[in-house]
Every structure is written in structure tokens, then in C-alpha cells.
């Protein structure tokens, strides 16, 4: 089964491990992620100002590209998911912005040729934006994943970190409960892990503030890492490359400033899924992690 896939710039450039592991897992579950023929950056952040049409155009253009391939598009990065889903909602619910955006897209598409002449009809929000974890639950099914799980992950204590962008704002994202989400817990239970619940699972990692002031991101990320650590987690999973960067890389700073700091590996949820499905470690690529998860996985005989 083919499903249109939007990787986004970070998975195309920096989080290659996430992209690779996710494609491998999809293949093992009989899904082919069909990358959009053309796509651009989604803009990374959804504008919170009410008069911004220009700032949603990148997201809308990618949705229009996706509409040529099918009625849904899957993405992995939390920022892309947030931007695409919210931009899509604007196109569904706001007639004035929908008209303006389509006028722009039409002018844009008329100036191009061939594959890049993408807008065949007005884009009105006809594509459903799915996160990969929603695809696993709703298209593949967690029961099938449970059946396909080959590795014994019992005893591996995994803390699912959601961050902000999947969940908030709730009325637009409609992803899960913003304070007590369950989807990653259900996923982890399906692949046989011990789930570690921790109070900071929906707290911000500092996000793009890493670019302005590193100390801000260190403080935020440390709150999250410590919370998971105190609950006894062996490993944290995430679906956001920026969360992964902040929580993992910034442990360099945390270990210098906190006596007795216990480092915790932070991996993408599809890397863990890959281990569960028995996919070769080479394909899951743990070379980019600052805190190397391989010793832990070897100790549990998982690699």
C-alpha cells in the first residue's frame, strides 16, 4: 500500500536517521511511503497572528502538491505536522484566506511548467494530514505491529516524550489529550516495552530558543530529562528532530553542570520500532546520537 509522504527539510538534511528508520519500518509493515514528487520547506512555524496569509502559503503549497497523489499525506516531524495540519484547517474553515491563498497558488502555478504546474483545481483542504504514529494506529493497526514484533523488549523502560507541537492547540491538532496523551503509550505497549509515565512528557524542550539563547533550551530540556530519569527511564523516545537535538545534544552541558547527572539516550520512536520488528541496526543508524543508545540495547540483547 502506497501513502504520500512529506519528509520536510530537517528529515531531508539533518535527521537522516529518522527518515531512514521510518521508511524501513513502513516497508516492514507493508506500507510504501511515496515521497511527494516536489516539495518545499513548510515554513517550520505556524503564524499565530491573524492577518498572516503569506506565512501559511508554503504549507498550503505542499498540501496542494500532496493532493495530486492521494487523499492523505503522512509526515513525521512535529513542526511539519503542526504547520500542515493548521494550514489545512485554515483552508477548510476560513473562506477569505482560502480564496487569497488559492489566488496566490494559481499565479504561482501558472508561471511554472510541467511537474511544477501543480494546482489543477482550488485547494480546499481535501487532503488529510496524518502523523506517522496515527498511520501506525489507524492504517496499519497496533495489533498488526504486536504480531510482527520479533524482539523481546520487556524490561526496557521507555519514556514517551510528546513535546508541544503534536498536541497543541488541541482544538486544531485533534491529536490526543494535551495533558494526558496516550497514543505513544499504546504504541509502546504494542511492541512490548515497559512504559514510563513522567509528568514532563508534554513540556516544551525550549524549541527554537536554542538559536537565540542556548541556556534557555538547556534549562527546559533538563527539566524533561530529569523528570524521565527520576521515573527510572532507560531511554526517551521522540518524534521531533528539534526535541531530539535539544534533549540529546544538550546533555553535554547538563553533565558538566549537574553532579551525578545520569545520561539517557534519546531516540526516534521509529528507531525503537525498527528494533522491535527485527530490522538490522545498520538501517536504523544510531551514529548521530550524542548519548549512544547501543550499549544499553546491547545490554538488553537488542542489537
Amino acid at each position: 500500500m502506497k501513502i504520500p509522504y512529506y519528509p520536510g527539510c530537517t528529515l531531508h538534511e539533518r535527521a537522516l536517521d529518522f527518515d531512514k528508520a521510518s521508511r524501513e519500518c513502513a516497508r516492514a509493515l507493508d506500507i510504501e511511503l511515496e515521497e511527494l514528487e516536489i516539495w518545499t520547506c513548510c515554513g517550520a512555524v505556524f503564524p499565530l497572528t491573524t492577518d498572516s496569509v503569506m506565512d501559511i502559503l508554503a504549507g498550503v503549497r505542499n498540501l496542494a502538491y500532496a493532493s495530486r497523489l492521494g487523499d492523505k499525506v503522512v509526515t513525521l516531524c512535529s513542526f511539519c505536522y503542526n504547520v500542515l495540519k493548521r494550514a489545512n484547517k485554515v483552508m477548510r474553515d476560513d473562506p477569505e484566506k482560502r480564496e487569497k491563498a488559492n489566488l496566490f497558488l494559481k499565479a504561482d502555478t501558472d508561471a511554472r511548467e510541467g511537474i511544477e504546474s501543480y494546482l489543477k483545481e482550488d485547494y480546499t483542504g481535501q487532503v488529510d494530514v496524518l502523523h506517522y504514529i496515527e498511520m501506525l494506529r489507524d492504517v496499519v493497526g497496533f495489533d498488526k505491529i504486536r504480531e510482527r514484533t520479533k524482539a523481546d523488549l520487556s524490561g526496557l523502560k521507555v519514556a514517551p516524550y510528546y513535546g508541544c507541537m503534536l498536541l497543541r492547540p488541541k482544538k486544531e491538532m485533534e491529536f490526543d489529550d494535551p495533558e494526558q496523551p496516550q497514543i505513544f503509550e499504546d504504541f509502546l505497549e504494542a511492541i512490548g516495552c515497559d512504559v514510563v509515565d513522567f509528568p514532563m512528557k508534554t513540556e516544551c524542550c525550549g524549541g527554537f530558543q536554542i538559536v537565540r539563547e542556548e541556556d534557555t533550551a538547556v534549562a527546559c530540556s533538563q527539566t524533561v530529562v530529569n523528570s524521565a530519569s527520576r521515573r527510572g527511564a532507560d531511554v526517551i523516545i521522540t518524534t521531533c528532530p528539534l526535541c531530539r537535538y535539544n534533549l540529546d545534544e544538550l546533555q553535554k552541558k547538563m553533565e558538566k553542570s549537574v553532579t551525578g547527572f545520569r545520561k539517557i539516550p534519546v531516540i526516534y520512536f521509529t528507531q525503537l520500532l525498527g528494533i522491535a520488528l527485527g530490522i538490522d541496526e545498520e538501517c536504523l543508524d544510531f551514529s548521530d546520537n550524542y548519548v549512544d543508545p547501543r550499549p544499553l540495547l546491547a545490554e538488553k540483547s537488542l542489537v
Partner: protein
Amino acid sequence: MRLKLSAEVIKGDLVERVAELSGQNLSACYQCGRCSAGCPVVEEMDIVPSEVIRLLQLGQVEPVLDSETIWICASCLQCASRCPRGVEFSSICDALRAIVLRKRLSGSVVDADEVTRTMVSDAPQMGVVGALRKLNG
């Protein structure tokens, strides 16, 4: 802080602009403080979120535009998620930043040249693009 209040100040154009740009009903806030309590970056702010909203209710936009707070918000929307009155402080921050950035009232807090020189090879693209769009305009 001593404030001289009048109807004109409280209903000033700039306050109206903040309400319009953010799409938020500023007077809905009854100062419970849950936004400030839940904010992950509140310790770095010079004016905490609920105080920003109170100042805006009193027409005091200038001190808010001059604050560090509006550049520290990471748009995580925890404030909005927990507000019992449906006010999104993150959106108010975006509106305040837009007012500054669109007029180029002051130098940007993030220098695009500096960021592209130091961060691009290492940090995820989404962080760099996000910061430049939110903090550089």
C-alpha cells in the same frame, strides 16, 4: 509601577491592534496566573505572561513591547492549553513581536548572518528557520 490611567489610554489604538493581530479577547483574562505557572520559560522573563495581559488590559503597550518576555516565548502553547478563559498568551506574544518586527522598531534579537554562520551545520533546519521567522521577522 505608577500608572496614570484614562479611558483613552485603556482603549488606545495600539491595544486594539494587539487584540486584533492576536485574535485574543484581552479582557477575558481574570488573572488566575495559570499561564505564568505553567510557562516553561517564565523564569527568564522580565514580565510574566499574566502581568503582560494585565498591562495590556490597562493600555500599557509600550513597556510590554520593550520587554524581554516577548522574545523568550517559544510558542509552546502550554499557556493556551491551561487557560480557563481561552486566552492564548503565545498568540499575544506573536502579535507583539510582529508589531516590533514589522516596524523595525529595534534591532532583531537574532542576527541572521550570525545564525547561519554558527548554527546551520549543526542544529536541525526547523530550529533555524523557526527562530528566524519568529524572532527576525
